[in-house]
């Protein structure tokens, strides 16, 4: 499968659950640069997960959606995304290698020898060499999220949607995994939902803050440096700025 770089733009979108009488998102605009990380920040309950799940095709029937989604380089989103959530979503009845190859259970393609070899390589890549046959229950939280990362890589989709993938981890583990993810997902178009301003600042090339109710998104300009960024005075200032603009919704 030849890799194609893609970009997604969402224009004037609104989203409403059918059984609710108020839209969650309205006048929402978002541009995800090709092969870059885009982060979305926003207070709890503002609709971040709903948006992501809509993009992932998980909300088709019970929501009302209006707005345009323009895709570059891919035909549909549906077949071109990989999904990572806050929970690692490892199937507890499968060992590490089977979890990494989980997507093959749903594809027409049988797991070939090369696929298998690649899976082992990816497990090595995320730093779990030799643990391919371990069951998830034996792994720590950080290691489990590494397996989830390997699974995402194994899917090899151009777009990766991530819903607070690191928020269940402690500070140091999170820091290490952020670095790893930035490295291995370098050529993907990534949408990262997070609560953590620092995480967003460290990883994203574009950053949006969701505000208001129904929520819209405002964009923040970031320094044009490579990710993962090292935390410096400029980022510290940006962080304070983010917190201030998020706090608006809390009063």
């Amino acid at each position: 499968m030849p890799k194609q770089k893609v970009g997604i733009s969402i224009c004037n979108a609104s989203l409403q659950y059918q059984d609710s009488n108020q839209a969650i998102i309205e006048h929402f605009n978002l541009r995800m640069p090709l092969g870059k990380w885009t982060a979305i920040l926003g207070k709890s309950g503002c609709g971040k997960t709903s948006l992501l799940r809509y993009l992932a095709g998980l909300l088709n029937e019970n929501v009302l959606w209006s707005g345009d989604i323009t895709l570059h380089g891919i035909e549909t989103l549906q077949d071109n995304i990989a999904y990572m959530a806050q929970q690692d979503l490892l199937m507890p009845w499968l060992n590490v290698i089977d979890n990494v190859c989980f997507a093959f259970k749903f594809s027409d393609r049988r797991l070939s020898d090369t696929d298998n070899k690649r899976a082992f390589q990816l497990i090595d890549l995320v730093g779990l060499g030799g643990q391919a046959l371990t069951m998830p229950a034996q792994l720590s939280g950080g290691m489990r999220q590494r397996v989830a990362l390997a699974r995402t890589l194994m899917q090899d989709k151009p777009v990766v949607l991530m819903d607070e993938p690191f928020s269940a981890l402690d500070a140091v583990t999170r820091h290490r995994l952020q670095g790893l993810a930035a490295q291995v997902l370098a050529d993907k178009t990534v949408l990262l939902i997070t609560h953590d301003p620092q995480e967003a600042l460290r990883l994203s090339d574009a950053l949006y803050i969701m505000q208001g109710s129904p929520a819209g998104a405002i964009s923040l300009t970031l320094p044009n440096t490579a990710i993962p960024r090292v935390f410096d005075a400029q980022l510290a200032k940006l962080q304070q700025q983010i917190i201030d603009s998020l706090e608006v919704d809390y009063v």
Partner: protein
Amino acid sequence: MSKLISENKTLSKQINFIPKAIPQSMKSLLRIFISAVTLIVLWQSIVLFFALPSFILPSPAAVFNKLLERYDILFYHSWITAQEIILGLVLGLSMGLLFALQMLLFDPLRRWLLPILIASQAIPVFAIAPILMLWLGYGIASKVVMAALIIFFPVTTCCYDGLRNTPSGYLDLAKTMGASKWQLLKHVRLPAALPALASGIRVAVVVAPIGAVVGEWVGSSEGLGYLMLQANARMMIDEMFAALFILAALSVSLYFLADLLINKLIPWQHD
């Protein structure tokens, strides 16, 4: 104070902290043994002291005697009851699983059948045992159906709950991977429901013997329930207690067997 703290841990966690596990379990085995012996001695002395006639309360010695004396008959009848239980379990478990699956897959079925299923629970199964006998006769069929009926509801609920409470994240993940409805069922819902199914089986294994024995009580010519009835009618309460003891032992072994199998087959259930 430290005691209160350590009690807050579940047993399995506590065991992890026990440095030398074997002496500990030996100690608790010894404790069980001692309390059992104490209880038996108490029982025997009550019988002796109040000179209770054996049809009111037989002495443990008499019961033990019966166990030895009539072991062949007890064994034969246990075998019959065990058969009824096993067949009832197979029938009830498969019916329950099937029913739960149907409710999951065919929405109208669920909407129409679930309320009826729940309402039917208010009717104690054992109360319709006499009529069941008239329908199915006094052979093994009625006992098997009785055992199956009595476990049907708990099994169905456990299976259905397990099947529909698949963590939504698992489903989301599989759906983004392009899973079809059937693939979801096979690769996600069913394996994820196994622990719930296991707890259904645990409940079933406990109540199925009750179903079988109640069935035998209402009419039968063999089995432990029959033996108890017969012994009771003949005022041989010691024999009745012996049969009761065997029945208890049978239930316990069945439970531990099931537990062992489940732990072997679904090792991740403790998550």
